């Protein structure tokens, strides 16, 4: 898949755990894990917005086209 999810990189940079992020973004850890491991087929704008807000980053920091 040419779109790479760099969520784990951003989480490491912000020193935030999966459980904490899932609580603050209000999605289940299982779903966040799917996103983190690159298994997700799509991401809703609302989810992306919430993640960017919590991690204080841009969508481009999380998603990358290779």
């Amino acid at each position, binding site marked *: 898949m040419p779109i790479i999810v760099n969520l784990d990189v951003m989480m490491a940079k912000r020193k935030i755990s999966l459980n904490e992020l899932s609580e603050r973004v209000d*999605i289940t850890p299982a*779903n*966040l894990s*799917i*996103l983190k491991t690159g*298994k*997700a*087929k*799509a*991401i*809703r704008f609302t*989810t992306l917005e919430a993640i960017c807000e919590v991690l204080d980053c841009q969508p481009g920091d999380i998603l990358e086209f290779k």
Partner: protein
Amino acid sequence: MKRLKLLSVLVLICFLTGSLQQIIVEGGEGYRFGYNIQEMELFLGKKADAHLLLDLKPQVLDSVVPNGVNLKNGDELIILPYKATITTFSAFDNETPQTDKTLRIINTILNFVVVGVYIYFLILFFKIFLTFTRSKVFEEVNIRRLNIIGIGFICVGLLNILLNYIRISIAIHAIELEDYYITYANVIEWGNIVIGSIILMMTEILRIAVSLKREQELTI
């Protein structure tokens, strides 16, 4: 989902009622027919050796004469049997060619296969119905089951064609009628093939639905 459950119950009821009707009505008629044949066997002093349901056609259609009476008004009627059960008493004796015997054995085996396949369909239908009641319709296993049923119906249709062909071949070898000839005209039965094709088409729709569901599940 409620409508789907309702429809599945309807399909199951139709399937079971149809099967029961066939067993009771045809079984009852078969029993009566068998009883009459037995009486005839005692009367003739020889055993019936075959009961064949055959399609017939009159040899000369132009010179058909009235051969029946309408008891309601006394009118003359022309009755042309196009389907008839013919019972033979010595058409298949010991001098029957080996090919005929083989065909009859194949015919019997294929009949059992068709019955077995129908029972298997019933089990699969019931399993699919159970997934409906548990609201787990969009599953890979249901696609597989429906696929088996669809392909099975087409196979049964093809088997029926083979069975009809064998039955008519056996009859043509051993029986020759005065005013009618045995025809291959209705050897192909499209019913099961059409049902199988429709089920396979619906299965493809279900396959698309399952893949959409899977994608939806992976949308975060």
